Structure formats: C-alpha cells, structure tokens
C-alpha cells in the first residue's frame, strides 16, 4: 500500500514538471511568418502576408498584421507558404526497413479479419521515416494498420512530430481499411465472389448478433465486432482498396448495401467506373498515377486519373500507401496537373480536400485563424519537384529538418584518408 502511494507521489512529482515544461515549450513558440506568398488552401492567395502563431494554432493570417513583441520572426520574403501536406493513407511509423520483417508492424497477416487491431499500437514516434517524410512538407498522415487482409484494423491520424504518440495523435481509430483484392490462393476467400461473400457475411453476423442480444448493447460484441459495428453505424469511415473495374463496382455495392461511410482507393479499373463512382458520392484517394497502364490503355491513362476524376466532379485526395516513399507522393500530384488536374485542385488535394476526406478539416488543411499551425515555407512553387522546404512548423513549433539522411550527409561530408 505504502509503496503504491509512494509511486503515486513519484508520478505526480514527475508529471507536474513535464506538463509545465510542455506548456512552457509551446507557449514559448509564439511565432510570426512574414513577407511570404501565402496559399491558404481555401482558394485565397495572399501576397506579402503574415501569419501569427500562438499556442500551437494559427492566430491571424493576412496582410499588414503587426508582429507582437516576443514573437519569433521567420522571414519568408520571396518564399511560398503552404499548409502542411497530408498523406491520406500510409504506413509511416510501422515500417523501418521494408524487407526486414522484425522492423515491420503493418499487416497482421494471420487472419482475414483484423478489425480488432489498431495502427496506433504499432507506431514508432522515432521512426526515421518521419523526419524524411516531413522534409517534403508532409506534416500529417493517416496510418493504416495494413491492407493485406480483406478486413484490416483501425487507422490513426498523426502529426509528424513528437516523442510520444499522444503528442502526435490527431484522431485515433476513425476508420478501417477493406481490401477487395486481398485474396490468397488456396485459402478462403480466394476469388472476388469469395471476398464479397466474406465481407457480407462478416457484416451480417454482427447485425445478427445485435438483434439476438436482449439489451442490444455493444458489450455483447467482441473487439472485432465492435469495430465493424461502428462501421455499420457510420461512426467510422471505411477506406476500400478496389483495383479492377469489377472491384470498384463491388466496393460501391458493398458500401450501399451496408450504408458504409466509404472512401474508395481505386486502381487500374478507375476509368471504367467514373460514372458509378460519381453517383455513389464516395470520395477517392488517388494512388495509381504512376501505375503502368495495360496494353489496351493509352500510355498516359493513369497520369490522367486525378484530372479525369475531378472533371467528373469526384472529390479526391492523394495517398502514398507506403512508408519510405511517402515523400514522393506529391510527385504524383505534379504529374496529374501536367495531365489535366487544375493546379488549385491539386494543391487542395494535398491539403484541405485531404483534411475533409479524413474528417479533420475543422483543425487541419488550410492556413486559417484558429486552425492547428502546420505550415511549410517553401523555396519556390511546392509542386515543382525541385523546390525545398526551408522552414517547417508542426503544431506551432518549428521542427528540425535534420532527418537521418541529413545526419548521414554531414557525417560523410569529409572523407578521411
């Protein structure tokens, strides 16, 4: 007993200074970014504008704003300022080295239904991928638990800065991931009809259990079932990988049958189902811009994916679906713009549209007073691949641009004989 009480005191003693320290660190970070060309993300563009940042949020944005005393000034004249970019689906923090199994915590391949898993339980806040990714202006990502199973676990939306996950967490468990192409040979489900039957049965079983339960309460349900129950009630989103033409149709059919709050991640069949996607009202995550078109398609078929979907009136954002190559995700946006996506729509696909699809646009996706201060100061047009991030602010704090790769560069700047 005594020991426990002593523990409690010890915890409080440690806790108070930590809280104080965190608060002090944050409040010390009042900052002003002055003189830059601000692309707010809402469609507004401000020349020679100022952004005031206080307590982790954007205090003011506009022209002719005075800088209060005590604010750290970041001079951004001649530079372009964007909201932090959002990678709408990745495995950042779950994969340190691709081919080394022990460093990977994405994809629990032991079951066809892993809805009871949480991405948050695997995220390593000190993964070297985080520093590398944010150096390309990506400040927020939705981490998926995986995509290897037909039904995968809960995602976590995180900001790419912090020593502990709770310092990074934006929204925990707001979506699951379905994969209509996660069939395995020789194991049920091994075909498309198998996958669809498996999905339907999984949802029917929960509906059935709920009907049977006398008090109709969720506590009758397993962890797995509770997650799917939330999906059925529309409390969480369902991000669905659907590669071919018929997979996209099946995803939409499934979404309609069970009234799911679905977001589609279509693959090579996207152009065959534009009408059906549009009618479904489901937004799309684009991650097939650089997929190689088949022999029956034009060479530029997938370069046109985002542009054509936008033309049809389908809301969209981009997703890397990877860890190490997440920093390359904006390259696909530049390519899409080259092949028909309007520039401003591409810009928003990386920021405000992405935040909307993730349901975090109240706090994220644009440079507006009151929103979380995730901001990148760029040397030039951020959609030019050759442009660099010169300053990066995450939750109001200027973060280091020294990732593992800059440290390696510096270590080998000189070679000893």
């Amino acid at each position: 007993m005594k020991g426990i009480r002593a523990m409690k005191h010890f915890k409080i003693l440690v806790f108070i200074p930590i809280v104080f320290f965190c608060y002090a660190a944050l409040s010390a970070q009042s900052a002003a970014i002055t003189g830059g060309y601000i692309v707010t993300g809402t469609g507004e563009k401000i020349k020679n504008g100022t952004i005031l940042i206080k307590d982790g949020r954007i205090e003011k944005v506009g022209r002719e704003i005075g800088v209060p005393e005590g604010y750290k000034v970041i001079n951004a004249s001649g530079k372009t300022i964007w909201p932090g970019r959002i990678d709408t689906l990745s495995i950042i923090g779950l994969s340190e080295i691709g081919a080394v199994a022990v460093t990977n915590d994405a994809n629990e391949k032991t079951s066809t239904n892993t809805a009871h898993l949480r991405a948050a339980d695997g995220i390593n806040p000190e993964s070297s991928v985080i520093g590398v990714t944010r150096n390309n202006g990506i400040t927020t990502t939705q981490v998926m638990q995986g995509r290897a199973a037909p039904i995968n676990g809960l995602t976590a939306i995180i900001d790419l800065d912090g020593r502990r996950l709770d310092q990074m967490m934006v929204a925990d468990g707001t979506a699951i991931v379905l994969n209509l192409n996660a069939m395995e040979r020789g194991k049920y489900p091994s075909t498309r009809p198998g996958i669809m039957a498996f999905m339907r049965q999984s949802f029917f079983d929960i509906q059935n259990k709920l009907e049977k339960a006398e008090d109709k309460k969720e506590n009758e349900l397993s962890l797995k079932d509770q997650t799917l129950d939330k999906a059925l009630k529309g409390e969480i989103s369902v991000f669905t990988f659907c590669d071919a033409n018929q997979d996209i149709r099946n995803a939409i059919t499934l979404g309609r049958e069970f009234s799911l709050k679905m977001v589609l991640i279509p693959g090579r069949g996207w152009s065959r189902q534009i009408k059906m996607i549009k009618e479904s009202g489901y937004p799309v995550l684009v991650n097939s811009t650089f997929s190689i078109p088949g022999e029956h398609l034009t060479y530029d078929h997938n370069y046109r994916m985002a542009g054509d979907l936008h033309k049809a009136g389908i809301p969209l954002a981009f997703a890397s679906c990877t860890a190490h190559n997440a920093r390359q995700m904006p390259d696909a946006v530049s390519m899409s713009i080259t092949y028909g996506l309007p520039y401003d729509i591409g810009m928003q696909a990386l920021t405000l549209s992405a935040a909307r699809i993730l349901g975090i646009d109240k706090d994220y996706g644009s440079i507006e007073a009151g929103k979380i201060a995730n901001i990148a100061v760029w040397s030039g047009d951020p959609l030019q691949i050759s442009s660099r991030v010169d300053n990066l602010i995450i939750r109001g704090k200027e973060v280091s641009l020294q990732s593992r790769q800059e440290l390696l560069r510096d270590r080998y700047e000189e070679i000893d004989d």
Partner: protein
Amino acid sequence: MKTKITRIIFALLVPFIICTAGFAGDLVIQGGTVLTVTNGVIENGSILIKDGKIAAIGEYAPIPPGAEVINAEGKYIMPGIIDSHSHLALNGDINEATDPVTSQVDMADAIDAHDYGIYQSLAGGVTAAKLMHGSANVIGGLNTTVKLKYRTSLEEMRIPGVRQQLKMALGENPKRVYGSKGKQPSTRPGIFATLRQNFLDAQSYQKKWENYEEKKAEGEKAAPPRRDLKLETIAKTLSGEYGIDCHNYVHNEIVVFLDIIKEFKVPYVVLSHSFGAYKVRDRIAESGVGVQTHTDWWGYKAEAYDAIPYAIKMMMDEGIVVDICSDSEDVIRRLNREAAKVIKYSDMSEEDALKLITINPAKILEIENRTGSLETGKDADIAIFDRHPLDSFSKCVMTLIEGKIYFDINSAEKTALK
C-alpha cells in the same frame, strides 16, 4: 569561353550548311530552346538531320528546300534520355535464378521489340536503355544496350559495336536467393568466394585455350578444350571484351569488389545502385568506375537504409561519372523528374542535372560518341518537351531516334493492341 566561340561559329555556319545541304529525306527541327547538354543552351535553335545523324546545329536558320520541318517553337529540345539500368521488354525473363553463376546467358535472347513498355518509355523521351539480367545471381548474364525502336526488331534496336556488360550482384539478393536454398552464397564472404573462384577458373580456362592455340601454331598435335560458354564469357570479361555491371549497395562490399577488379585487372566496370558509394567515393573516383544510381530510393531493405538523396552530387563533386537510372518500368517514363529532384537536394545547374540522364549514362554505356548530347555528327536521338524538361509540369511531345519519329503526342498510339 569555349562555348561562346563555338556558338559564334555555329551562328555563322549553320545558315550556310542548312541552305546548301537540303534535299529530300532531310529533317529540320526549327525554333525552340535547344539544350545541347554539352555545349550550352541555344535559344531559337535549329537542328538539321541527315541520314539519321545531326548534320548541323545552331541558331535559327532558313529551311532548306525539300526538307521536312518539325516546328518546335516555344518547345525545349534535348538529347534523348538514356536509361542505364532497365529490365524492360524482357517478358519477365529477368533472372536465370537456377545457379549463382549463369554467365552463359545473354539478355538479347529475351528482348521483345513489340513490348508496349518500350512505347510508354518513348513517351517519356527515352531513346536508349541497357536491358539487364536481374540481381539473383552473383554472376548473371550479359546485358544488352539498345535504342528503343518500338516494333522493329532486336537487330534494329541493337547498337552495333557496343561492348556488352556482364551483370554481377553482391549483397542481399544473391544471399537471399541461394541462402534460402541452403546453397552458397548465403553471406557476403560467400559471394566474394564465388566471384573469385569463377574469375580464377576463367583464367585457367583461358590458359588452356592459349596452350592449345600455341601447340596448334607450332604444328603439334592437340585436342581443343571443351568450349565452356560460362567460363568463356567470364574470361572475355576479364580481358575486356565485355564490361562488368555490378549490382551493389553497402560501402564495405564496394571496397572489396574494387579490390577484386584491381587484382584481376578487369578493364571496364560500372556500379549499379551503390547506395553506400558516397561513403567511399574517394576509392571509387580513384578506380575510375562509373555509378548508375537513383535519386531518393531508400529503406526498402537493410542495405538501402543509409541511402541519401545527396549522394549524387557528393559523387559528382568527386569527379565520378554518375547517372540516374530507373530499374523500373514506371520510373523509366519520368527520368527527367528524377533529375529535377536532385536539384531539390543539392545545388546543381540545370545542365548538370540533365547530364545525369543523357551524356553520363551514355558514357557509362560507352555510347557517348554517338548519342547522349546534341552535337554535330551524333545520332539524331532527340526528345522534345513542351516546357523545360526539369519543370514538373512539362511533358514530352515528341521522341526521335536516328531522325525517325517514334513518339508524337499528336498522333500517339491509343493502345498497344490496335
């Protein structure tokens, strides 16, 4: 200074050459910004093409009678892009992964001139590529350098007189492929033992043949040794008839490999991937070998964990010939964007960035005397972009190989299955 004088000479000569040289079959690309890559930029330039070669290049000039004209006003004209590392058009026949040493195989035997990937690459401005054996084996097969003459034939595509490079591979891939079968090599020492033993065997094989030829020349009776394709290819590599293209990643294996090629006096070697090369770039510069690498790949395996996007510039500063290659049927279509990415990470001129995908790979493939830059006398391998090729919103609008149009955005093939 040299560039200035050359430009003045061009300005004086080009109108003369173009006016007098015109006859049917000639082609003139007129207007546009010419990025020669080796002789600076010519605004409003003109290129005269005769018999598939660049006959003249300079400032704007009148069109010779009878010549076909490509109007490139407002466009950017650059040398055709060259990919020094590709597995395109091989129909999946990439790895003869049945033995750690398969030097008897030749990738030319797999090449399909009708592969749609060739057209998709032409649409990205690529005109030449080295089509390669994979990295499963310590010693793989012979790579073949080709021009991307879609829907012609292997014979048409092959560049005559170009030294083939024998693929070798160090590190994780051969370790995994053979280690998982309980076979040597399962470690890096195993890989190097395999390599050394085969080099020694090839030397003995070569001796046998020399002894036989000697006896024959002296009129002695002698039976010829068995012709062994595997050892013959390695022997020809040691003598320089073939080069070596060595797949490697970490710096320590690079150093060991450089020591081995020095020990065996291998005449021509290039390094592939080489993500650890920046750490030992002094050793690489000293050995004179070129490096074909990638801009920002990393982390997909342990040996790629220390890859950094700054490496290309660090190696260039050391005097190493470096290029950006694709090793991918996707990335080959957008190598100009990979070159732009180098400028993001390192201060570099646009011309130096373009060299990484044109003249430098040409040097590594030993075809720089005929392609890789826009110069008089070279093959008319040309890519035309609607904006500067390092602009992220640029796209290739036309690709020519030896003066023939293989891609034109205005009449682009809708599909491969037409």
